[in-house]
């Protein structure tokens, strides 16, 4: 993994001292809240319903054991004993006191972490495939490119006050696990006809109130041109993005209004000015960054186990992933226990994961966009020991990718923007589906829940999406069907009127039961849905409600 150099350390230290002074001036009244708010947001500090929330950046979701251990200690000492892993591969603390935050930042800095680029209208923390450097279907490791983008974008003076926030994702595998088509810029590593590696570039994707699939702006971008091309896109956006209207300020709206061809022309013209300048990436620098990201080799090569207790085999079936190196596997640590809060991990659980990371995981653990954790590299011979430890600490739920592996935003239980609760809905769905064993029978199904149209719970890209809305003080939930985040990316469609919260779990159970009736042999839920259309499920959603 990447290690800070002297510049990184100095940059972060200086920022902490700057923020410490800003907090002191806010406390003694020299700064008003209007003056302080943009300053705290630039350091990842939000004010939510009950308390401040600190969002800590986890660049491309990758952590070392010592970093996870510090996250655990912060949860224990400064929060309420837990943290919340997010869909953007970060972690949020829901209860820190403002006066403690400068000290929290010091602890983070000691292990090369910070809360910069987790808020504000800047280039946000870059995301990537959580299985990068490990996945069996990978063309190239996306982490070095994500790190190059991180270094280039951090405190970029030209792009610190963009029209709106800006999100970049990188994927290097055949399957898109970084949701590149739902980012402001999505980069897919590809190989051209001559066998050269480069990037397919997508632009203008996003969720929120105006969900858009990104459009392809370039078939092949040579690696050394990456930063100059990103700069050109951002300059066009910075100049023409709608600063007059918050709801029309994202780049997706600009791409919509210009059209992708005219937008590309603008970018190409701008690119002409910067392409051959200082932003051209030297091969030596690419090699230097790549050297930080190695894929380990096992001490001994053995196949993944086929035997053992039923619960272990079930966990292997759902939570183990093939690795690109023989003798290794990747495993998903589910943060979705039945009836639990999706994405939450206690301080103790984080410490256990740190221990496993150190002992079995070649010192690397990842956060996924599905709000789970991944040990990307573990030896097959260690899988049983890992599972046993996870099970002892409530971390061995065998549901990665199943319907109980629900993604949800914090919703109205925590968030200042939310209209409706989402966590209790997820808990109730999870309990209902588990009671019937439906999730295991239905196979791969994604359910994602957002508590408002800002769509932090990614409901637009779920096979079954749930959107909470407020109608005259009452919570209702709209169901969407057919969304997907991968190479078959799609935006889900609303199927009908909203449901009361208590009706949602049963409605989703009926959708899955209908799927089991309609599916052909071996067919996944999303394929049945695409074959038959959402009408085939609509009646199931609203059945029994009339009574």
């Amino acid at each position, binding site marked *: 993994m990447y290690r800070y150099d002297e510049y990184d350390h100095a940059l972060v230290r200086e920022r902490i001292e700057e923020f410490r002074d800003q907090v002191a001036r806010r406390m*003694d009244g020299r700064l008003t809240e209007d003056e302080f708010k943009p300053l705290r947001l630039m350091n990842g500090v939000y004010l939510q*319903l009950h*308390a401040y929330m600190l969002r800590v950046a986890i660049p491309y979701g990758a952590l070392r054991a010592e970093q996870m251990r510090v996250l655990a200690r912060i949860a224990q000492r400064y929060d309420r004993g837990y943290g919340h892993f997010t869909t953007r591969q970060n972690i949020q603390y829901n209860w820190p*006191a403002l006066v403690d935050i400068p000290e929290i930042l010091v602890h983070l800095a000691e292990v090369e972490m910070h809360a910069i680029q987790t808020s504000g209208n800047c280039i946000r923390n870059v995301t990537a495939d959580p299985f990068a450097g490990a996945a069996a279907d990978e063309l190239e490791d996306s982490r070095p490119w994500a790190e190059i983008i991180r270094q280039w974008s951090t405190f970029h003076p030209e792009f610190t006050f963009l029209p709106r926030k800006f999100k970049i994702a990188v994927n290097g595998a055949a399957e898109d696990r970084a949701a590149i088509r739902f980012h402001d810029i999505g980069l897919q590593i590809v190989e051209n006809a001559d066998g050269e590696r480069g990037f397919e570039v997508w632009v203008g994707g996003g969720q929120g109130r105006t969900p858009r699939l990104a459009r392809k702006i370039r078939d092949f971008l040579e690696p050394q041109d990456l930063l100059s091309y990103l700069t050109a896109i951002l300059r066009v956006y910075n100049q023409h993005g709608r600063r007059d209207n918050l709801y029309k300020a994202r780049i997706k709206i600009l791409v919509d209004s210009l059209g992708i061809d005219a937008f590309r022309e603008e970018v190409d013209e701008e690119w002409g000015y910067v392409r051959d300048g200082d932003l051209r990436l030297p091969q030596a620098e690419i090699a230097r960054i790549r050297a930080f990201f190695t894929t380990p080799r096992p001490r001994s090569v053995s196949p993944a186990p086929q035997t053992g207790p039923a619960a272990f085999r079930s966990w292997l079936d759902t939570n183990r992933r093939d690795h690109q190196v023989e003798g290794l596997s990747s495993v998903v640590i589910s943060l979705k226990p039945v009836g639990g809060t999706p994405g939450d991990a206690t301080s103790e659980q984080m410490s256990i994961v740190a221990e496993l990371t150190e002992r079995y995981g070649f010192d690397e653990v990842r956060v996924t966009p599905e709000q789970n954790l991944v040990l990307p590299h573990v030896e097959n011979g260690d899988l049983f020991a890992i599972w046993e430890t996870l099970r002892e600490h409530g971390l061995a739920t065998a549901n990665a990718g199943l319907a109980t592996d629900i993604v949800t935003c914090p919703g109205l239980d925590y968030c200042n923007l939310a209209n409706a609760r989402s966590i209790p809905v997820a808990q109730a769905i999870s309990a209902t589906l588990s009671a019937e064993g439906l999730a295991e029978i239905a196979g791969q199904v994604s359910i994602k829940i957002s508590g408002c149209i800002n769509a932090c719970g990614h409901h637009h890209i779920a096979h079954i999406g749930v959107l909470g809305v407020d109608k005259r003080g009452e919570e209702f939930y709209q169901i969407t069907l057919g969304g997907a985040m991968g190479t078959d990316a799609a935006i889900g469609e609303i199927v009908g009127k909203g449901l009361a*919260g208590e009706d949602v779990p049963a409605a989703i159970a009926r959708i899955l039961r209908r799927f089991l009736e309609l599916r052909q042999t071996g067919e996944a839920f999303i394929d049945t849905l695409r074959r038959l259309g959402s009408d085939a499920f609509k009646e199931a959603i609203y059945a029994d409600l009339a009574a």
Partner: protein
Amino acid sequence: MKAITANRLTDGRVIYRTPDGDWSPHLAEAARLDGDNASTALALAEGEFAVAVGPYLIDLDEDGPAGQKWRRESIRLVGPSAGTTHVLGAL
């Protein structure tokens, strides 16, 4: 009937403005306001930015938060509803 609520500057906790112009974490200690009293008190609260962040008026009835934002304000009052009960209608 209305009350003034905000978040405490030091730690962000939910607070309510009392009749004597202090701030309390307990809704029971909040000043009950109406009409012009509410506007006047809110203007004063907005000047207390070294203690309270973002003061605003909420609707109350005898049982607690009321009006269109009753659920949001009830959650602010008692804390997150997400727990182990799975009872959606609990609030």
